[in-house]
């Protein structure tokens, strides 16, 4: 499969996504400069983490106007999978591809740590190899990951199963204590109504090798590959 990792000015985790996809997952991966205008050859687009435009004004607010974003929107509208991680999640909300917005972490600090998240919807292209309710251990590294949406939007999202991940305790309980940043209802990742665009604050590319302290991120990438190959949920045994 061919993955495109977008490089915005200020992207940092582009190389990490690239390595995870190529060296660990053995996929075809390529960087896409933010001025690129053709995404035809790609099967999946990754908006990586980092600090696009320094995070100035608001995270993702300026990158969202990069030339490549119009193509990303078309790509998404055509139903192909797009995943935004951390700052990439910001770009997706700013671009209106995902509902809601992000506030400053409630403790006002940047947080880099391992957290636990629970898979709330295992029917997406990004989670189809996860069990429903499966708990994953994953790093976060952000200052503005406090997810917000107004109550109408939230209700709609719940109805459509658009909340894909929630922060939880190691045992899978959704508690305030296990919520690192104050996100509304512990939301850690959401998808669009169609399910082909995912944004998540936890960073799967940071946990794909034992030497990095864990491999729970692999299932996310594996799910995408599975989806692209035409597989669907329930393909768990292939892991």
């Amino acid at each position, binding site marked *: 499969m061919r993955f495109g990792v977008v490089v915005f000015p*200020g992207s940092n985790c582009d190389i990490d996504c690239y390595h995870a996809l190529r060296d660990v997952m053995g996929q075809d991966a390529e960087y896409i400069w933010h001025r690129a205008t053709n995404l035809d050859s790609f099967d999946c687009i990754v908006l990586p983490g980092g600090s696009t435009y320094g995070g100035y004004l608001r995270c993702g607010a300026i990158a969202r106007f990069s030339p490549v974003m119009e193509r990303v929107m078309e790509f998404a509208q055509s139903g192909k999978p797009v995943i935004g991680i951390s700052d990439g999640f910001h770009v997706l909300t700013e671009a209106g591809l995902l509902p809601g917005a992000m506030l400053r972490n409630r403790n006002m600090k940047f947080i880099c740590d391992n957290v636990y998240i629970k898979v709330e919807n295992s029917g997406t292209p990004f989670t189809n190899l996860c069990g429903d309710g499966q708990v994953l251990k994953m*790093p976060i*590294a952000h200052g503005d990951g406090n997810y917000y949406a107004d109550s109408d939007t939230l209700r709609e999202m719940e109805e459509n199963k658009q909340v894909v991940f929630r922060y939880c305790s190691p045992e899978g309980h959704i508690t305030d204590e296990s919520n690192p940043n104050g996100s509304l209802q512990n939301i850690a990742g959401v998808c669009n109504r169609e399910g082909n665009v995912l944004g998540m604050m936890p960073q799967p590319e940071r946990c794909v090798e034992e030497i990095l302290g864990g491999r729970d991120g692999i299932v996310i990438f594996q799910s995408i590959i599975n989806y692209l190959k035409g597989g669907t949920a329930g393909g768990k045994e292939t892991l």
Partner: protein
Amino acid sequence: MERKPYEKVGLTREEYQRIVDILGREPNELELNLYGVMWSEHCSYKNSKPVLRMFPTSGERVLQGPGENAGIVDIGDGLAVVMKIESHNHPSAVEPYQGAATGVGGIVRDIFTMGARPVALLNSLRFGELDNERTKYLFEKVIEGIAGYGNSIGIPTVGGEVYFNDCYRGNPLVNAMCVGLIRHDDIKRGTAAGVGNSVMIVGAFTGRDGIGGASFASAELNEESEENRSPMQVGDPFMEKLLLEACLELFKTGYVVGMQDLGAAGLTSATSETASRGGSGMDIDVALVPRRETGMIPVEVMISESQERMLVIVEKGKEQEVRDIFEKWGLHSAVIGRVTDDGMLTIRENGEVVGRVPAKSLAEDAPVYHRDYKEPAYYKQLKDLDIEGLEMPADFNGVLISLLNSPNIASKEWVYRQYDHMVRTCTAVVPGSDAAVIRIRGTGKAIALTTDCNGRYCYLDPGVGGAIAVAEAARNLVCSGAKPLAVTDCLNFGNPEKPEVFWQFRQAVSGLSEACRALGTPVISGNVSFYNETDTDAVFPTPVVGMVGLIEDTAHITTQAFKDRGDVIVLLGENGEEAGGSEYLKVIHGLERGSVPVLDLDREKKVQDCCLELIRNGLVKSAHDCSEGGIAVALAESCISGGKGARVEFEGCKRSDLLLFGETQSRILVTVEQGRLEDLLETAGQLGVPATVLGRVEGERLEIAVDGQRMIGLSVKELETNWRGAVECIMQG
């Protein structure tokens, strides 16, 4: 009385005369200012140079020693590590967020100027005690500043240290260290050569920032200038990230002759140093320097310290190619002059020469001073410590908890949780163990990194304290499975014009040097920061040691955490009962005095070599060095990190408080599988290192007995709650 013009730029009468001799005439205003900044202690090291010659600076693996933007040490496979540490103490005291942030920015530029990809940041920090709002504010904002900059440019901040002591109250220390990776073939130097080659300035526009502090001899300064000068800058990590990527891309073209970042003394030092190193001259026009502000006069352009700028010497005819690369990254670049062969730094404004001096005279010919030094009165007085008079604590559990709660020993998680320490996905050991470990992609190797310095030891005995800083740094690396390779140092001291301070400085450098020789770790780069004092007092002499080590095989990576119940705990080295200078003495008895722990460098080396050998033989499951808080704290930390308890027994002791909490050097706690214990003891014996079985990893509690008597018994949970929560609790309370 009106001060003389040379006094206003900080020069003495003799120094002025020297300039007149060099030029064969009186300098004009601009020229005088150039000498003023370049011959300052900060740029010229005129007070410290003779002392720094004590450092060992060469070795098999040293590819670049002191004198360049950063030092370089070989790690095999055609790869090398580039590293440097630098202070940003004074700016951080005034504007902690921006002061710390721009400190990080500056050190990162030093690394990629050499052609290296920065892969890790560390920071060494000192503040007053956290008992007042001002200090808490400084601490909080410095951390935010480091995080704000480092996180944004995507270089992981993987380690460092923080200590609190009243001596730093008015004068916090903020030292930032950066480490880069490079292929030998790609090493670039800050050299200007090749007559006719172009001199370009790239990155941010030049403004009046960073020059408010400098004093001016000039009567011609207009009001616009006076009003708008600011001593501080605001860091722009986004610009730096672009600059970093653009410069690394540019190096690949082969068009770069030399590169230098614009740091202290801005364009003045960048032009004169590159020309001087290349044995060439330079002819530049300040009118060509892109500016952010109107009405700037030549001297302002020459000494502005606006951030995120680089000077690039480019092969003639390749300017457009260079421009294209910077444009791609959304950055400005401009040709401001060319390299000449007359050895002169010629400065023009719109073509007209406004200043012309020998480049080398600015960069290298500052006078050198051999300062007076004198042993301070306190030195002998404080050695006195009435150990008999120290009351034996009744409750050892309480002592251990107090130590774990001391911000100097407590977990620094509150700090490093704010740093992105994982970006670039190479951090194999994250902050919280003895040293950070970064794997080297494409090889089976890794490097280990640490910074260390116990300021209290260095105050009580600068010589031994300095040596211990090196020894502890090396020990931390060894505990991680690395062979120590090289040192970068940041020497933070008071006013060198005071003989007592200068004595501390000399002693410390001598101690550092001796230890560096003994442990085979040459000094490849460093930085001196003097005048760290307020009206009342100087800071403790604080010679911070940054060290890199090489792990030949990632399988050797070792951490301090206890791994499995049943493993045997062995002490390499020998226990002592030393009290002087310990955190125990400070926290429990309120004393900062006594003789610092003895350091026998031979023994230290043996213990370290032994530990590394054992690790390489696959015998060691965890390793942790004993430092502040002694062996009891070391045991507690290994328990906490591993989430497992331990049962330990000591024998043959006079004072159990000093045995458990004293800070005797050259000790490492290792654990080994029961089945391999004999192998371990045998190897240690062959290497002539005492190895004592202390006990086992077991249960959920730390149980320590001395000569059959139970001294400490606490649940790991309780240890952890205190140790992990202490700093956060203070900062929120």
